């Protein structure tokens, strides 16, 4: 059946794309749409009532807690994204230009951590960062600390470290692809024209790999800002993010419209920040002219 479908080259792409497109419309696009509708509804006596209002958004933005959680999520997302690009770029560069021999092995290792053990891996960080964990054990063993350091876990920084660890493969692969796609001839041309390796890197390699860097950055930003398992397990009170508040509304508290409003408020803030940044860029360019 599958074979016959694939074989018909002349069949319009509709037949081959149709099922998947339909599936994604029904189970991805429409659900996100209905989820948006929920944010304008309200809850009465544990039941969602379809009364249209903006009360949930008002509640999100006027509450003393949620705006702080949103800002913290965005900050954690941005810091994690920047750090992951900084940490991962040399790794991707080495994979492409230096360690060709081990490239397959290392890509396989990245695949393993991309596809396995999300919860367990985050949980394992507790035995590294907790009071009687690996880091404190080493610190005390090396006499760098005379007692366990409590600031290692239950802080936003612990969340950043663990998110960095979880999402390294997501950051490596786009940068790796971008670097791999650079024509070697271009690099040879740069050195033939007298550029030293450092200059070639800054003026040729880096600009050409920027699309990969931007892709990695936005992946990691969105995935980190929207994570709730990591802050739940290593964040403590001070590391809580908006995802935790949302998950609570869909669990114990059961105010789905409020939870939906939190999600779309966060998205709104991101969109506004992005728009402001674009306008700012434009303004700068106009000033220069």
């Amino acid at each position, binding site marked *: 059946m599958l074979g016959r479908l694939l074989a018909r080259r002349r069949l319009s792409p509709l037949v081959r*794309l149709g*099922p998947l497109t339909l599936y*994604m419309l029904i189970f991805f696009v429409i659900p996100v749409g209905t989820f948006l509708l929920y944010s304008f509804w309200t809850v009465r006596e544990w039941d969602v009532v379809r009364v249209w209002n903006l009360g949930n958004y008002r509640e999100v933005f006027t509450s003393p807690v949620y705006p702080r959680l949103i800002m913290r999520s965005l900050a954690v997302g941005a810091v994690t994204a920047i750090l992951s690009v900084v940490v991962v770029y040399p790794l991707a560069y080495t994979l492409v230009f230096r360690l060709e021999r081990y490239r397959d092995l290392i890509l396989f290792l990245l695949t*393993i*951590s991309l596809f396995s053990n*999300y919860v367990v891996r985050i949980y394992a960080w507790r035995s590294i960062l907790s009071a009687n964990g690996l880091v404190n054990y080493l610190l005390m063993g090396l006499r760098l600390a005379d007692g366990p350091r409590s600031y290692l876990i239950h802080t936003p920084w612990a969340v950043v470290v663990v998110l960095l660890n979880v999402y390294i493969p997501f950051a490596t692969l786009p940068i790796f692809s971008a670097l791999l796609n650079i024509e070697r001839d271009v690099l040879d041309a740069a050195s033939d024209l007298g550029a030293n390796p450092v200059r070639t890197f800054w003026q040729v390699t880096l600009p050409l790999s920027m699309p990969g860097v931007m892709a990695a950055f936005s992946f990691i930003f969105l995935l980190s800002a929207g994570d709730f398992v990591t802050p739940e397990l290593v964040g403590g009170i001070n590391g809580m993010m908006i995802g935790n508040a949302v998950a609570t509304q869909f669990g114990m508290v059961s105010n789905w419209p409020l939870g939906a409003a939190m999600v779309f408020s966060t998205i709104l803030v991101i969109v506004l920040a992005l728009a402001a940044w674009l306008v700012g860029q434009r303004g700068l360019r106009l000033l220069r002219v």
Partner: protein
Amino acid sequence: MPTMPESRPVSSAVQITGARRLRLRNVPVLEIYSGLALVFLFLPVLMLVVLSFNSSVTGIFPLRGFTLTWYERAFENRIIWPALQNSLVVAIATAVISALLGTPAAFALTRVSFRFKSLLRGLLVLPVSLPTLLIGISLLSFFALLSVTRSLLTVTIGHVVYCVPYMLLVVSARLAEFDVAVEDAARDLGATSFQAFRLVTFPLIRPTIIGGMLLIFAQSFDMFVITFFNIGAQSTLPMVIWSMVRLGINPSLNALGAMVLGFSILVLLVAHRLGGVKVAG
């Protein structure tokens, strides 16, 4: 494969960079750095495996001695078996459905051009780059609106949304480097389009499809967030692990985690051996 530096045409400028590279190679900063990054990446996994054999019950450090008790404990836990069975059912169903939906779509996206193609591709691949929280609760609210009872079926539906992009990416990457000439040759030799596909194209891309399915199997087997919001009365392995995690540090959890990891590595190793499975590149 990109050309290796050794096979470049030798010009004086290249020789100079070659000499520089040689000097830089004496201090392999980048290689050491990459090694450290990989150590950081696998630190929690190493911890997990080490602690799963550690005989100390209360503290984590210092390590006491070697034991297999935690593995025995993990096997004695009765909740695990039905959860394992459910996880396998969901993962297999997710892999099969993703292959059936994703493979034809990948063909259309690589071989036919039409309006709005890149827009459609972007939409179809979008779920992998979104937080699973958003996908999970959107589906939950959608099912609730339609009064659909949550079950393993709703979980599978959610897993496919997240996993199908991998099938698209993997098969598209293979098709992009596929030599269409072999298909044309088959047709020139008298094969019908269907025969050309069945006898030539499909055997060539079959390892990629199977590899992609294994990748998706591993992904689904491990998927927590989407499952968490869309599961009914039943349980899957990541859900059991989550409930154990919530109860606090538990050495038999390390053993269970290590075994799950071992299983995932095995599945991914088979996918890798089949070759042709690339998520990037």
